[in-house]
Structure formats: C-alpha cells, structure tokens
C-alpha cells in the first residue's frame, strides 16, 4: 500500500526527550523524512529497540514499535520478521546495546539474513547510564568507570558485521543527513539483514568524538566516501587514495601511484575480503575513515527459505491434518 505522507505523519504524539543538541534528533529527522519519501504504509512499519538513549527512538515514530530489553532487539525483531514477512522491520540500537549485552543476537541475525534493518547509533559511550566507556570507546579513554583509561580494545562495528556474514553493511554520520538518507534508501532496497553504523554525537558525555569526520577543517581530509565501481579516493581534491595489497589497505598519494593503481570499490563482490580490508583503515574515527556502503550482496532471506519449506511440505504432504498427526506413530481401537 502506498500513500503520500509527510514527515509529520511519521511523528508520534510523544514529546522527544533526548538532551538538547544530541545527534539522535538529526537521525530521527532523517529517518522520518526518508520514510515519508519512501511511500510505505506506517502500519506496515515496525521499529524495535533495546535499551539506551537511542532505543527511545520507537516512541517517536508513528508506526508500530517495541522498546524492548537491553540487547535483545535483534532477537525480537527476528521473530517478528520471520512470523510476518509482510512487514518492514527496523531495529534501533546503540553501541552498548548491540555490541556489548546484545552481541550474540546481532551477529546471529546478520548471519541468518532475516529481513531486518539495523541502525546502530554509535556514540562510543554509555549515555543513559551517565558516561561509562563502551565496547567502541577507544583504548585509554578516561570515563567514570575507567578513571585511569580504558584497557579494553574496542570493536570495529563494520568489521564485526562483515565477519558475521552480513549481506549489507554501511556506515554514515548523523550530521550528514543526505548521506544518512542515501544509506537508509540502500538498506531498504536490500533483501535481508542490513546493518548501518551511524556515528552519533553524544554532546553530553562524549562530545566531538567524530570531529575528525565532521569538523570543518578535518572533514575533507578524513572522510572517505565509498562509491560502488569507483576508485577509492579522498581529500579536498581527491589527492589521496586507497590501495589494497597483501590483504591490507594502504593510504597512498594519487599523484605518486596513479589513479589506475587504486582499489576500485565493489560493494557487490561476493567475497567480503576487500570490504573488510577497507573497514580496517580506521579502527575509530580519528583519521581517514570510510563511510558509505561497504557490502551489498544478494542472498536469500531466512524467512523466504522457511516459507518455501512450508510450501514444499504442504505441496508434497498436503496441509496438516490433526487426526493423521496424532496417529502418526500408530493407533489402535478398543471396542
């Protein structure tokens, strides 16, 4: 069903309660705009979240929604999507929610390729519990729970998703609304699990964590826009580039190596190896960091495979009959 909607139609009547200036506002606006442009029906859209600042998201969408349990949103959304393939199911989660307490559900949802779209708001900190280091905080980060600096090595969410057999992996930045919408668009086109890491500024507990990619000065030096079919270049005048050799990405000067030597990004490559190599360019957004679609490959979805089995079984054995079922391992009559 398509109907023409505006951003307002996608807003619920709940007052939005993030801290003023939080990156979540920008993402919410991008998603609402995108949904209105997409032309899908609100009643066929479901947002499922876990716990954390970002997980308040479903309350603000005029769709069906569930604000669930810390870390469990991918599992709940998987059940919903498998039961109801007719729905468009979105998961909103954060770095603590998805990668710490819910890591297991996230990776298994990815590998199954259930048709859910996962938006991971990565602010590299625990916001709702007031500022502990998270599984994406950089090593050495000083927080209330790591006063002498964190001794944890962080996850690289894109590498993790690629390792978890995700068929769609992308990264974007809260501030860049056009780019965010483009990633949402690509994810919604994709059949199966889609994973989008969104760098999100928590201005209260981890302000300017993404300055290298959003700051006026640094931005053009550090943002590597991945575009399918194009050589990977960046810099104010595209003077830098990326080569991959020995499975490792290397930053080079285009003038020195020539455009033809650069890695040409192939988001549809069957092997995730090159996408993985690109994800290793930056382990945190502190220097040149790729954004865009890392990987987008077709693979049958879990629910389609399951429904096919149901159809096959019904075709070959006929629809189930209770009487036959309960006598399937033999029965006898007592007169």
């Amino acid at each position, binding site marked *: 069903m398509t109907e023409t909607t505006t951003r307002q139609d996608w807003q619920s009547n709940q007052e939005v309660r993030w801290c003023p200036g939080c990156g979540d506002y920008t993402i919410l606006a991008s998603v609402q705009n995108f949904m209105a442009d997409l032309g899908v029906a609100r009643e066929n859209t479901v947002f499922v979240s876990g716990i954390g600042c970002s997980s308040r998201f479903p*309350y603000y969408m005029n769709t069906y929604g569930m604000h669930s349990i810390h870390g469990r949103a991918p599992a709940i959304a998987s059940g919903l999507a498998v039961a109801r393939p007719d729905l468009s199911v979105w998961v909103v989660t954060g770095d603590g929610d998805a990668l710490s307490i819910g890591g297991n559900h996230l990776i298994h949802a990815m590998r199954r390729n259930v048709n859910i779209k996962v938006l991971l708001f990565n602010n590299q900190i625990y916001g709702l519990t007031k500022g502990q280091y998270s599984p994406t905080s950089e090593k050495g980060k000083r927080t209330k729970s790591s006063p002498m600096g964190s001794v944890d090595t962080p996850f690289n969410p894109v590498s993790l998703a690629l390792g978890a057999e995700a068929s769609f992996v992308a990264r974007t930045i809260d501030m860049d609304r056009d780019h965010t919408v483009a990633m949402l668009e690509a994810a919604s086109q994709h059949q199966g699990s889609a994973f989008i890491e969104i760098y999100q500024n928590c201005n209260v507990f981890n302000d300017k964590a993404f300055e290298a990619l959003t700051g006026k000065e640094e931005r053009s030096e550090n943002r590597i826009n991945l575009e399918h079919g194009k050589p990977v270049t960046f810099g104010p005048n595209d003077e830098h580039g990326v080569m991959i050799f020995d499975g490792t990405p290397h930053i080079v000067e285009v003038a020195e190596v020539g455009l033809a030597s650069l890695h040409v990004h192939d988001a549809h490559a069957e092997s995730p190896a090159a996408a993985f190599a690109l994800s290793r360019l930056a382990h945190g957004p502190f220097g040149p960091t790729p954004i865009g679609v890392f990987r987008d490959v077709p693979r049958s979805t879990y629910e389609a495979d399951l429904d096919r089995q149901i159809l096959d079984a019904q075709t070959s054995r006929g629809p189930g009959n209770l009487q036959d079922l309960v006598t399937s391992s033999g029965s*006898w009559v007592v007169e």
Partner: protein
Amino acid sequence: MQLAGARFTEASAIFGNDLSTFPSYPAEIRAPADTLGGVSTFQVHIADRDILTPGDHPDVLVAMNPAALKANLADLQPAGTLVVNTDAFTERRWTKAGYTANPLEDGTLDAFTVLPVPMEELTKKAVEETGLKGRGVLRSKNFLALGVLAWMYGRPVEPTIKWIESKFGSTPEVLAANTNAFKAGYNLGITTEVFRHTYEVKPAKMEPGTYANVTGNQAVAWGIIAAGQAAKLPVFYASYPITPASDILHELARRRNFGVRTFQAEDEIGAAGAALGAAFGGHLAVTGTSGPGLALKSETISLALMTELPMLIVDVQRGGPSTGLPTKTEQSDLLMALYGRHGESPLPVVAVGSPSDAFETTIEAVRIALKYMTPVILLSDGYIANGAEPWRLPDLEALPDISVPFQTELNSPDRYLPYLRDPATLSRPWAIPGTAGLQHRIGGLEKVDGTGAVGYDGPNHELMTDYRERKIAGIADDIPDIEVDGEEGATVLVLGWGSTSSAIHAAVRMVRHQGAKVARAHLRHLNPFPRNLGEVLGSYQKVLVPELNRGQLWRLLRAEYLLDCTRFSKVQGEPFKTGEIRDKILELIEA
C-alpha cells in the same frame, strides 16, 4: 537400548496392552562403557488392566553387562527373571562395574531365575552372512535381546520387522544384521529349553476409543499445533537445544505442512525474544526449555508480562540447580515458574500430569495466554517428556474455540488505547502490526493506564501493578474446581501436581486395597489455584504433598492457606515408587 525399549513399547501398545515407561540414560552421549554411570536403562510396564506407573519392581531384567546388572538388580522383583548377556561378564568388565567376583558365579543371583544368553556370540553368528564387519556387528545385540523378549511376552514379530525395515532401510547391511539378530533372539526362545516360562500379557480392558501411544514431549508438541488450530493462529516455536525439551523442537520442526514455523535461536534469550516478537506479530508464540533456560528467559518473560502479550513458555524440568542432572527428572522449578522474575510479576502456571494429559493441558495453557494476554508457563518434566503411555484420543473435531479476535478498530472516539482493559478479564486488546490506524508503541517501561504511554508516576505504577495482579488472580474464576477422588471417612488427602499423579494414584489404590480410606487430588493449575482448594484442604485432618523437590508446593500451600500440610520429598532424579507413597500414606493414617 533406548531404541529397543521404545520398540518393545510400540509392539505392546499395538497389541493392546496398557503400558507405562521410564527411560533413563546418562547425560553423556557416549558415556564410559561398563561403569555404573554409563548405564542406559529402559523400564516398561505392560498390563492387561489399566496401570499408572512404570512399576516399582520389574519382573524381568535384561542385563547387557555387569554394570547394568549392578545398577538395576536391587529393583528386580524377588524371584524375578534375569536375562543376562554372559559374554559381557569377563573379569575386566565385572571389576570395572565394582564387583569383586563374577556375580554370575558367586551366588549373587541365587534368589533369581537366571537365563544366561551368550548374546555377543549369538549375534556374531546371526550377522555373519550379512557382510557387516567390525564394531557394528555387536550393536545388533540389542535386537537379539529384543527378539528374546518378544518371544517371552508373545509379541507379534511382523510389526517389529517392518519397523526395522523402515528405520534401517537406507543401510542394507545394518538392516539385515538387525533383522537377523532379532529373529535369532526370537528363535532362541522357541528352540531352546532355556526359557522355561513365557509371560502372557493379554490386551488390557480399557475404555472404548481410539488410542495412540505418546510421550509427553510428543503430546505437548501436538497440543501446540492443535492449540494453533483452535485459536486460528499460525504457530511459531522458538527454542534452543536443551535436554529434555529438545524433542518438542524436533517434533514441531517435522510439521512444516501444518504451517509451523520453528526457529532454532542462538541462545535461550534469543528464543524467548523471537517468540515475543512473533507474539507481537499475532502468532501463537511458544518457547520451550528446561530449568537453566527458564532462568535465562526470565527477563523476556517479564517484558511479555509488561507488554501483556500472549506467549507460552514450556519448561520441561530436570534435576538442578545448574546443569544438575540433565537427563533425570525433578519438579524443582515450581517456585521459579511462579516467582523467578524481577518486580511484581505474576503469571499463570499450569502443569502437565502425564503423557496422556499433555495434549489437553497444553491447549488449556494456550487458552489462558490468549484470553488474558499474558505469558503462561507450562511445566512438564523429564519423566513425562520421555515416558510413554496409551492416550485415548479426544474428538479432534470438537476442540474448543480458543480464538481471540484482534483489535481492528479504534476503541475510543479519537485514538487507539492499547491498555484499555476488558472489564471482565482485565485483558488488553491485541492490535497487530499491519492494522491501519492502530499504530502504537509498547515496551518495558511502565505504561499509563489506558493510553499505554510511558508513565513514571508512582500511583499509576501501583494501579498497573494491581491490574496485572488482579488479572491473573481472576483466572481462578475461569478454571475448574479441584476434584477429589475421595472416600467417605477418609482423613488423609494426598495432593499432587505434575508427574507424581500416576504414582499417587497407584499408591492410593494400594492403600484402599488394603482396606484403609484415603482421598487424592491433582492440581493442574498452580497459579492461580482453583477457587475451592483451600476449602478442600481444610476438610481433611492431614494433607500429604509428595513432590520431586524439597517441598515447593507444600510451601505455597502453607503460605496461601496457613495450613500445616505434610511434605514428602524425593530428589533422586527418578519418580516416586508407588510403594514409597503407599507407606507414607499408611504412616499418616496410623499416626
């Protein structure tokens, strides 16, 4: 051994005997051979009358090796019959089993009738021409033993041979070996003088009807499918493999033609979550597990309780805590089912009483979940799960309609109120995604009465807590009173729940047979209790509560009714013996 036992059971069921089984096996898949811990046992009780338990003391014991003999001899009926695989009684093996001399020779078995059978030698001979070689040969010896038993008990041969064909048809040598071994065992009985007495167990006189032999897990799985039909909802079963509940997943996974969706989740929490997601989507959502898994699911069950979505959680209990006795039975999750969650979180608890009761009880649990929009815990246990008995099939055309209509329209003039309750049941409406105009958000934060918006307000929290409590308590008006199988003048009531029902029933029969008076009752609903329970309990001088735990129902009854019942506890990983309960009843009557 389990396979041979199950086959003997099937043959007896088809023959028309009443029966009851008690399979017992080690927690390890290939447990160390010849040790007591590695013994796999299958006890079956067959009769020409209705029976209730697998029996306390078998008449015949087939011991395949010294360890099996040692582990089970104490249970054998005095002067019972022993079929012994003599080839296994080498010094090395009887030493490993803990004997200091060969029990076949030192007088240990003098009180029994011993039928020595060199099973390995005979099996080798029978299998010779099939071409089967190596270690596989001796695997067929269980079929030789099965053949011997078939002869002793006059079981028809053909159905078992057919069954061997269907089971092993894909590997011709194994098929031939097992068939030959089975026939060799049977013929051994016919041709040798060794087997002096055979047992003739005639078909039992049972209530007229069509019967099928079921295990508890099978019947729960079928109950879930039937409940889906009775509720007009597609079935979604999410589970993580765990003993002894996995067979429910296996059975349902085979039933895709019923439209059943099974989801083998990444862990117990994922299974509960997936089920809850499916419930939100309007499916009959079920997750199955055992104790450790129930512990992991508790946070999700609390969310189901807060969001007031219907969901069935099956807990096939086993010995605990922790990994405990994973293949042995126990009833020790009752208090966890009732109280094992954070916050004030009441939910209905229903318990299966036997394999033949499981189908109907499962449907009852689903009925409550849907009507009251609540998670429901259905308790079974390892003994029910794996044990088999004949089940008189209900009229499947006449299953109750337990469907609950989805909300499809606004329930107030201008907006949808997800927490507007039905005044009678206090249940909230179920509007599923895809329903235009009823978009709403639910979640774990406390809800404002009616609107379902997030509410941090204290008095509202108390109001909602009270609603949730009264909703569950009110179910007492919607379940039958507890029935007493009593006798005029009885002063002792035996109250059971779950799998103790059969042993209690059999014990009560024995007591009455001895001329004493006793009453008995069985609880299917553990939360809420039937309305008349307090009154019933109060009308007896003494109430005996046998449980395979340390007195969990006993504790509940004392708390609820300020009543001093007598606890009778057993936690040995096996069911009560009838005699144990009988003796306890007699002790109470006489005291």
